[in-house]
């Protein structure tokens, strides 16, 4: 047998993941630069793809003239109202069906049966019931937010640690105390996950509703700009929508850190 002298070496090195911060920023900036370059060279006509700088310039002009603000305000109002109604109703239904077995027996099949319906398909019905005005748009957004909220809250309630519930009861907590002091805080992370899902759905439904029946809002702006082949304006609308999406996600993440401090303090 040969006598050896071998050093141990780290064979798991390739499993370690670095952050690559520069690469992250670089990818984003690179895409924009490539896009700008392609439009400058003239390979792609501005009608199909306006240049990023052009879109920014247009955005500035529309903001200055107040035109953008009108649409943004209309959209935000619908979004916030629908989101609020849907979230509150969803959390309430989720808690009740998660906690009370009778409510679960009634609610779960109903939710399972209605959840798969694409909510935008209900807009004509909602317009018939509530009219062409704001209520039908708010309602369709609320419906879209309601389902992910109810389902997530229900799951969060069901996942509450039975040991903690028993501990609360051992210290004299009744039904409402248990719900308020154990079930709701346990479900908070799931509720926030639901809010993030709901925010995406709300944005989708907002645009759809505004494209179908509205004369204001970002959705209307995008559709209208498309109809008159003003692609730059169209892109401004899309940029606004993506900013709305990023902003709502950021706000909800911040909100979660504030509301669930025990998960974020080390």
């Amino acid at each position, binding site marked *: 047998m040969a006598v050896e002298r071998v050093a141990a070496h780290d064979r798991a090195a390739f499993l370690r993941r670095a952050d690559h911060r520069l690469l992250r920023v670089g990818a984003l900036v690179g895409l924009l630069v490539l896009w700008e370059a392609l439009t400058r060279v003239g390979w792609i006509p501005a009608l199909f793809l306006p240049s990023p700088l052009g879109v920014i310039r247009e955005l500035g002009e529309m903001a200055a003239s107040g035109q953008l603000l009108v649409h943004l305000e209309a959209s935000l109002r619908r979004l916030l109202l629908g989101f609020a109604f849907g979230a509150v109703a969803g959390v309430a239904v989720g808690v009740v069906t998660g906690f009370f077995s009778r409510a679960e027996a009634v609610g779960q099949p109903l939710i399972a049966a209605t959840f798969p319906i694409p909510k935008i398909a209900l807009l004509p019905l909602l317009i018939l019931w509530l009219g062409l005005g704001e209520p039908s748009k708010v309602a369709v957004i609320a419906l879209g937010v309601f389902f992910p909220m109810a389902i997530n809250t229900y799951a969060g309630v069901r996942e509450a640690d039975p*040991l903690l519930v028993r501990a609360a009861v*051992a210290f004299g907590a009744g039904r409402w105390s248990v719900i308020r002091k154990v079930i709701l805080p346990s479900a908070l992370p799931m509720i926030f996950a639901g809010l993030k899902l709901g925010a995406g759905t709300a944005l989708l439904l907002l645009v759809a509703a505004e494209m179908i029946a509205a004369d204001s809002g970002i959705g209307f702006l995008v559709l209208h700009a498309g109809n008159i082949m003003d692609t730059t304006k169209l892109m401004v609308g899309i940029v606004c929508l993506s900013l709305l999406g990023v902003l709502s996600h950021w706000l909800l993440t911040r909100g979660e850190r504030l509301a669930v401090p*025990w998960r974020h*303090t080390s």
Partner: protein
Amino acid sequence: MLCPARMRVIVDGLSKTYRDRSGQDVVALDGIGLTVEPEEFVAILGPSGCGKSTLLNIVGGLLGATEGEVLFEGARPAGQPLTATVFQEFALFPWRTARGNVEFGLEELGLPAAERRDRATRFIAMTGLEGFEGKYPHQLSGGMRQRVGIARALAVEPAVLLMDEPFSALDAQTRTLMMEELLGIWERTRTSILYVTHNIQEAVYMADRVVVLSRRPGRVLEVVPVELKRPRHEGQMGEPGFVQASERIWGLIKSQAQAALVEERR
């Protein structure tokens, strides 16, 4: 400070039968009789599967008995609960700080905020938690977490303190320190304690009497008195009284523990 409750706990002919997953009736407890006198420290000891936690849950009002009853007899100042429990897995509310956890039972008792603060402060000091009041459970070590569990239970000033293997989730060194500390606290408060454990040394070191239970069905095999002077200290572990009681108990449960070893997974 309120005068402490002086109550005797009488467990009389207690039986518990439950149905397991295969639909068979399992007798967990069979005709258990025992008493805990005011200011007494009683340990319940038995091999795994003797239903000792079940017994504690019934005494704590978290589970119904099939037969027999648990009585609390004696004088109790208004507003003081019969029992408070210290759980094996701590069962602290992760969304509450140490202080928030200690105040939980006081909230459920309906005490005004100022009194809650005062009482919590007192028991935080007693359990050596000063300086950690604002920490969340996940920021605390196992030993500190269980101090919070003990402070939370003592703060409601129960007639009897129920402890369900409170130190079995801790490492050996921490456990020894916590036992000493618990004895110190008990010397000061003189709250009667019903202490469930499977650790003979722990039971003999701390208790006035050790109730030895048999394996399924759980029956009282013998009540072994511990003749050791108080206040107790580690040095007594070599004394004849300690050794005799330990050997007596091991003699009672050895064959049962062996049977449990073979039959553990069913």
